[in-house]
């Protein structure tokens, strides 16, 4: 086992930084892997909110993060689907629910039977066969293992306030004993193609065997000589994000709203909950100021 990676350095900021560090520490910390964090200043704005799909629940379970604290500490509310509005001409909005599809009769997907029914006059939209979609529209949240759901199986993710969620992860990482250094910037020390250390703006030199770049669009560890970023903007033309928040909605939905606009842009409206009482939450339309220049690559 002489070639084992012993020193892992995660350089970055905010949620990606801490999730990767905590995940690696939890899987390999007891296997003689020393995980270190080099934390850069946050890019999160007070108005930033997140919609996390249900895999976050399993991730937290694996990492040992208790979801019970999330409503209180970061305004988490369960989210059971995403509602897409104005994406298809005059068609009404549809809800993409987080669930397994209903069982078909055989080895082909249920949607094939629905498509056949539609050609034969069925007027019920596909989403009405989705436990997650129906629950989302009614503002209900199916339990994780709800026996009343029968063969259907729905899950939920969360709407979260991004800054407070990053703070929760930060605290969790520190409690897990991950040493961290805060810095305003790093320079990279290389031997050939290989990174051997990062040096903080304050002059601290941190060596490692393996480095993870979780710095966001800055990609601080990427080599200036080998910047092979692949541009997909010809297919995905949006290149700016504006965030803002507004007063709470009277009846906060259990879904994210994703609306399309004429200029090809889109917006997400997400409701954030009040501590422990999500049905009465204080949603804000998430929002404001543009992200830093570095987002624009």
């Amino acid at each position, binding site marked *: *086992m002489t*070639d*084992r*990676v012993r020193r892992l350095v995660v350089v970055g900021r905010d949620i990606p930084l801490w999730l990767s560090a905590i995940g690696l520490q939890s*899987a*390999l*910390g*007891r*296997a*003689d*892997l020393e995980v270190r964090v080099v934390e850069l200043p946050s890019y999160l704005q007070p108005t930033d909110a997140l919609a996390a799909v249900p895999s976050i629940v399993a991730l937290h379970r*694996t990492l040992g993060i208790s979801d019970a604290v999330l409503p209180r500490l970061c305004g988490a509310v369960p989210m059971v689907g995403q509602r897409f509005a104005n994406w298809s001409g005059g068609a009404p909005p549809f809800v993409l629910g987080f669930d397994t599809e209903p069982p078909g009769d*055989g*080895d*082909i997907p249920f949607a094939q039977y629905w498509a056949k029914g539609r*050609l034969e006059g069925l007027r019920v939209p596909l989403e009405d066969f989705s436990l997650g979609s129906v629950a989302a529209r009614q503002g209900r949240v199916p339990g994780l293992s709800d026996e009343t759901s029968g063969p259907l199986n729905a899950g939920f993710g969360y709407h979260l306030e991004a800054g407070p969620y990053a703070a929760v992860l930060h605290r969790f990482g520190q409690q897990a004993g991950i040493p961290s250094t805060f810095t305003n910037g790093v320079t990279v020390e290389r031997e050939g193609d290989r990174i051997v250390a990062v040096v903080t703006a304050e002059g601290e030199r941190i060596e490692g065997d393996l480095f993870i770049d979780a710095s966001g669009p800055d990609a601080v560890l990427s080599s200036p000589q080998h910047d092979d970023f692949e541009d997909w903007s010809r297919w995905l033309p949006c290149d700016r994000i504006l965030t803002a928040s507004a007063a709470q909605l009277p009846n906060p939905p259990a879904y994210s709203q994703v609306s399309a606009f004429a200029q090809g842009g889109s917006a997400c409206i997400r409701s954030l909950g009040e501590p422990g009482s999500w049905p009465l939450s204080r949603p804000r339309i998430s929002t404001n100021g543009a992200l830093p220049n570095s987002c624009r690559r």
Partner: protein
Amino acid sequence: MTADPVRDVVIVGGGTAGWMAASALIKALGNKITVTLIESDEIGTVGVGEATIPPIMFFNKLLGLDENEFVRETNATFKLGIDFVDWRRLGHRYFHNFGLLGAEIRNGTGFIQYWLRSIAGNASADPSTFSAETLAAAQGLFGRAGRDNSGLPNINYAFHFDASTYAAFLRRYSERRGVVRREGKVVGVEQDGESGNITFVTMADGRRIKGDLFFDCSGFRGLLIGETLGSDYESWNHWLLNDRAIAVPCERTEQTTPYTRVTARKAGWQWRIPLQHRIGNGHVFADSFIKEDEARDILLANVDGKPLADPRTLRFTPGRRRRCWVKNCIAMGLSSGFLEPLESTSIHLIQVAVMKLIAFFPDRRFDPIVVDRYNDEMNLLLEAIRDFLIAHYHVTERDDSDYWNYLRTMEIPTSLADKLELFRTRGETLPGPNELFSEISWFAILWGQGIRPTGYHPVADAMPQDDLNLTLDRIRAAIQQRVAGLPMHDDYIRQNCASAT
């Protein structure tokens, strides 16, 4: 309603492939299509004793078979894995078990990695105490034990059966559900002038049979896929030297072993497949390394009972049809390629071909995107099986014949070389999503053939030593308890599914 649906399906050739295709199609699509199967009593089928692997359960489930009835009607026995004799070196044996090795480890990595850690480099460590199937096989035990609340491991199994009675069984199943069988030989094929699609096949007595979709189950000949549509055959003979098999059935022995045995010979290997009423035997060998007479002598000198028929010789070229689906014709069985039955994959490949075809069932436009996707997936599946087979020959210490010396030192496909390198350093081979053989199967073969990994997955080190010891003890105890509760294989058959004969 689909715009241009396939209505008439014609299967050219019976045998295992033809009747598996017919039975599955009539079950899945019987109220929308007609299925006609053309076969001739004059043309023999290759079918000898056949060994299968556990995924055959999915096929039986698709057909809705009663398993005990199926076992009775095909003189079948149960199979827990394959006993490999003399493969690593003369006098050595190991078992390729069905099912798991150890158990799933939650929030960690695979069991094998923990086991590799636990043996601390001991090259003679034996993983077999962590396989219920291996332990049961060694003692001649078998019983069905599914996932239950006992906390004990389940028993994974497949079947040995008589391929000719299997085809007859599926024929009865198919004809009861409306498949029409036409007796006779196909002498002509008509194609559409524009599309090149096959429109009719002509039979010796002049009958013309019309179809929208054709299945070529004509065997090695590839009557439609090769002779008519020109899909060429790619030989893998330079990696898989064997190109002949001699088969002979013999009388059964007192105890019916719940596993297949394959014994390496100086220029090939010999199978032993126990059925309820007899034992199937065969010698697969390379014509260029051993004379047929000698191969026959070796076979007959190594059977457990009196031969029940004259030995039959079969010639083949290991390899594949480059495209199994061309225009409106799909090849299944031997017409689509041949891999020696060392890992019992023949019936599995037919099963995958049929089930994938149902999953991709076309309309009469035969969309090239669907056709290409089908061919790509079948090719990936086949290449990975090819690599798995080559590994049995290449990873060996045998140096007692030119045959083994060639195989041990030949250049292998890079896809296999990569797996072997990964296994040597990490104890894993990372099979892709289209591959049949799992990490557990690769481990069974590569460890059995003698590779000892120099490392294992770093995550395995995260478990404290006490936990590891406890976990391994607990898994081993559950396996022992499961095996101790199993009846003898013969008793189990007698009580549940004995054939009439």
